[in-house]
């Protein structure tokens, strides 16, 4: 009933357009996004009508007898990604449409300048489809590392947290099909709960400039979206199988999309991954297996006037944590650091034993948009996420199979925005967000809660605008306000409460005194402002200069406020601080780019000054009956990060191309004048590729990655070792040596039913089986990193 009313309404609006005097002409020109060459043979249709045109040799097309007002064009080309273009007709109108090459067809020409465009002035990079296919069997973090300026904070090989220009965790937002992930990103050993295969369009905004997604992205935003679905009657799908020698397993991912000319579409996707124990060059890494399952399902309808989508995704992972990294106290840690080999090496197995993590993430979304003629487009979205995390430790007796950590994080968000784009050259968006989050820490674990029960309320309002000053200059800017309330119920040990001085500063929040424990009710409000502004200036042949300033504030996360307990996996006591307030970042980023088809480069320096930067680092030692433990405390300081990301590519001949990247970042604690902890080391990667479209699209690439030794790190701490009965230096901050890795990749494609619908690829990483340890891998104290891995990938498109 409801839909028929909407339909009626749609017809009415449609008729009212037709009733106008319609004499306008649309003259269009379609050019290649990258080199401005005309694209012929592109089909252009006006959505909601049967009007269709095909572009000429010169890339031109036209429609006559159109009404004034806003229309939407769907532009499709056999070699390109279909694109929807909104045009305001006002008399006879000329429009130049830049069509992006379909990324899969890019194999003959190397194009790095395939920039995403979530912001115009900020530094942003997009993962190519080719790279996505190469990393289909790995994690999101592994794939993103192929972008310059993106590194990762690992716990072993399977828990990979993206680090953007030196910053990670809550400072990096992840947008999964328009939904901001709420998956306990606060923990260093918590990886994003997304299947890399569920979204094909993945880009990274470096910094806080993409304000519409959140005001607290001091590190950056990772935006994952599905590829747009073309409005035709079609049924297509893709299956990729990856097999790995290291881990003796692999994964399979498969998707199927049914679309209709009416705009209706149904899409399903599933992935399964299973790996056994991984191997370093010299020994097996016991209990490093992984099992992952992912499902996504989408149904929606896309029309010019309105559209809706229902989306559900489920991601489940069971990840083994290196057995040798589970240790007892500081003496065990010293012993592990000094010993060259892990203290536990078992036979290869697919079984995952303790310690391990099991995480399940459900994400559901309903969205709707409607276009108002002569005004703009209104979007509304509701989403719900449920993240359940179990962490299992090595325990004894009745508790052996009980989780040590059992958290359930449920988040509801309602967001809406209105995009005013009817005025040519100006694109303005205003939006609102409301969010409620509840965390429940199950007490049945028999272990004191690391993160307490809490309710969190967020409210945000933003406006972002993009203004095309001239053909060459685009200005963009935005402003956002966020309110957050954290309302927690937390137990403190009385001894800890007093040691932290909370009895003096927070005496009023105690609601129950149980003798050795106190129940408290901290309620904190945070008011945060963020703002951004910048420009993009195009000049010469395919050159552009971007400059962006962004100011962002981030409220502390639950871990920074409330952490209070022993982490067995790292043999450390982690302490949050109730006094922590929001941190504020001021970042200036510039990038100079050239994107010609024969060569191009990007030079992107930045400086990020963060006041009240929240940092976790080893500070002291506490004694228990089990021995001494290093204490890692959160504190705030003023920090300065300066860095540069640079890349250059060259297509030497039509067959040979090369690609070179360099990133470097320097982090300084301004207050103590010491280096910041966990800042990625400088690294250089070089690759050379040979492609030949006449030999089954053969593509062979050799990749080299050199990671320098991090020379700047905070000082180690000294601890009393009960075993040695003396004070010893705990070597936990010293970075490992520099290392160099080679990778080889080869791929060919065959035509079974359609052109190039079947691909086979072989990839070898750590080709020389080099033993190395990485500074940003938390398991570097215990074991070497991964040895050689030879993988086979099979891709079927149908």
């Amino acid at each position, binding site marked *: 009933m409801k839909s028929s009313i909407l339909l009626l309404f749609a017809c009415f609006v449609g008729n009212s357009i037709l009733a106008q005097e319609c004499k306008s002409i649309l003259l269009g020109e379609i050019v290649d996004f990258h080199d401005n060459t005309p694209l012929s043979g592109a089909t252009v249709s006006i959505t909601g009508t049967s009007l269709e045109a095909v572009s000429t040799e010169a890339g031109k097309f036209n429609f006559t007898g159109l009404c004034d007002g806003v229309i939407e064009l769907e532009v499709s080309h056999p070699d390109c990604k279909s694109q929807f273009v909104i045009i305001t007709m006002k008399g006879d109108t000329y429009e130049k449409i830049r069509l992006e090459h379909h990324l899969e067809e890019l194999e003959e020409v190397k194009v790095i300048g395939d920039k995403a465009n979530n912001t115009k002035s900020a530094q942003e990079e997009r993962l190519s489809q080719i790279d996505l296919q190469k990393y289909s069997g790995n994690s999101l973090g592994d794939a993103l590392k192929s972008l310059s300026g993106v590194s990762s904070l690992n716990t072993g090989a399977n828990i990979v947290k993206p680090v953007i220009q030196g910053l990670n965790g809550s400072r990096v937002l992840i947008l999964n099909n328009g939904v901001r992930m709420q998956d306990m990103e606060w923990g260093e050993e918590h990886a994003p709960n997304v299947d890399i295969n569920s979204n094909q369009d993945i880009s990274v905004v470096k910094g806080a400039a993409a304000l519409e997604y959140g005001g607290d992205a001091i590190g950056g935003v990772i935006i994952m979206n599905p590829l747009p679905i073309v409005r035709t009657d079609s049924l297509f799908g893709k299956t990729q199988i990856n097999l790995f020698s290291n881990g003796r397993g692999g994964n399979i991912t498969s998707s199927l999309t049914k679309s209709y000319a009416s705009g209706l579409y149904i899409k399903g996707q599933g992935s399964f991954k299973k790996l056994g124990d991984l191997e370093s060059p010299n020994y097996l890494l016991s209990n490093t297996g992984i099992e992952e399952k992912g499902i996504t399902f989408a149904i929606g309808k896309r029309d010019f006037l309105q559209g809706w989508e229902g989306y559900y995704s489920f991601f489940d992972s069971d990840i083994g944590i290196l057995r040798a990294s589970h240790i007892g106290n500081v003496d065990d840690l010293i012993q592990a650091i000094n010993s060259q080999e892990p203290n536990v090496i078992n036979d290869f197995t697919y079984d995952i034993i303790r310690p391990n993590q099991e995480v399940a993430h459900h994400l559901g979304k309903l969205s709707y948009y409607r276009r108002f003629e002569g005004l703009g487009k209104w979007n509304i979205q509701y989403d719900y996420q449920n993240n359940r995390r179990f962490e299992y430790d090595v325990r004894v007796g009745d508790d052996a199979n009980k989780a040590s950590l059992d958290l359930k994080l449920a988040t509801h968000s309602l967001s809406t925005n209105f995009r005013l784009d009817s005025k040519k050259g100006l694109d303005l968006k205003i939006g609102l967000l*409301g969010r409620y989050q509840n965390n429940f820490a199950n007490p049945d674990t028999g272990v004191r809660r690391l993160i307490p029960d809490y309710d969190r309320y967020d409210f945000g309002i933003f406006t972002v605008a993009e203004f095309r000053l001239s053909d060459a200059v685009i200005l963009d800017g935005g402003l956002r306000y966020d309110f957050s309330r954290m309302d927690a119920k937390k137990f403190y040990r009385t001894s800890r409460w007093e040691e932290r001085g909370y009895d003096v500063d927070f005496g009023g929040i105690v609601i129950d005194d149980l003798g050795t424990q106190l129940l408290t009710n901290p309620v904190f409000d945070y008011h945060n402002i963020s703002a951004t502004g910048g420009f993009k200036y195009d000049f010469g042949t395919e050159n552009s200069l971007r400059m962006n300033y962004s100011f962002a504030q981030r409220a502390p996360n639950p871990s920074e406020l409330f952490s209070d307990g022993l982490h067995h996996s790292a043999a450390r006591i982690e302490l949050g601080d109730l006094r922590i307030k929001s941190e504020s970042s001021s970042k200036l980023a510039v990038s100079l780019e050239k994107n010609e088809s024969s060569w191009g480069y990007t030079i992107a320096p930045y400086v990020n000054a963060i006041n009240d930067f929240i940092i976790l680092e080893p500070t002291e030692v506490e004694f228990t009956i089990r021995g001494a433990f290093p204490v890692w405390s959160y504190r705030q300081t003023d920090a300065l990060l300066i860095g540069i990301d640079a890349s250059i590519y060259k297509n030497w001949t039509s067959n040979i191309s090369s690609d070179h990247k360099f990133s470097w970042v320097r982090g300084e604690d301004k207050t103590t004048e010491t280096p910041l902890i966990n800042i990625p080391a400088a690294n250089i990667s070089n690759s050379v590729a040979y492609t030949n479209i006449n030999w089954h699209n053969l593509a062979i690439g050799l990749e080299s990655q050199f990671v320098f030794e991090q020379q700047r790190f905070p000082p180690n701490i000294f601890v009393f070792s009960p075993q040695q009965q003396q004070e010893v230096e705990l070597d936990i901050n010293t970075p490992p040596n520099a290392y160099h890795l080679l990778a080889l990749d080869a791929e060919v494609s065959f035509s079974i039913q359609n052109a190039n619908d079947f691909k086979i690829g072989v990839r070898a990483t750590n080709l020389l089986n080099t033993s190395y340890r990485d500074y940003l891998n938390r398991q570097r104290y215990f074991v070497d990193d991964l040895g050689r891995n030879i993988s086979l990938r099979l891709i079927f498109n149908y």
Partner: protein
Amino acid sequence: MKTIAKSFKKVSFNSVFAMAVIGSIAVSCSDDDDPVAVDEEEVITTMTVTLTGSGNTITLQSQDLDGDGPNAPTITVSDDLLANTTYSGSIELLNETETPAEDITAEVAEEDDEHQFFFAPSGAITSVDYSDQDGDGNPLGLSFSLVTGDAGNGSILITLRHEPKKPNDGSLADAGGETDIAQSFNVVVQ
């Protein structure tokens, strides 16, 4: 609908915000009860070593009631040891965060193949020998014998390892595993 109306009052937040979080309010209400306190399980707070010899009983105790809280364990030695004496020793482990205290000794005895005490005597304590074995005939250490030498100062480091390599050469380095207890006692032998 009634529950939603009710919950609005309860949350008493500004109404725009309430609209935004309408779907969630039912959840927030159900969790309004205070969380229950967690009593740590399988924590060892107290190790009491009883030494009996020449008609005397001496206890060495390490008690850490706040576990991984900030307070260091309290160490008490009831009396001085006699020179050139053989004591028979036994170890009792308790979790005193629970009332009544939970006896962890029994758990260790039950899973004796996964546990072992290690003794590192020095100074006036000359040697320590195991008096018990696990099911596989490897040493356990819940009971032991301790020999003192001439008068003077001595110390003994007692370590309990979980899942050590068994059998091992008696050194901590060779045994591996995880440390459940590591405590040293300074004693006077006279």
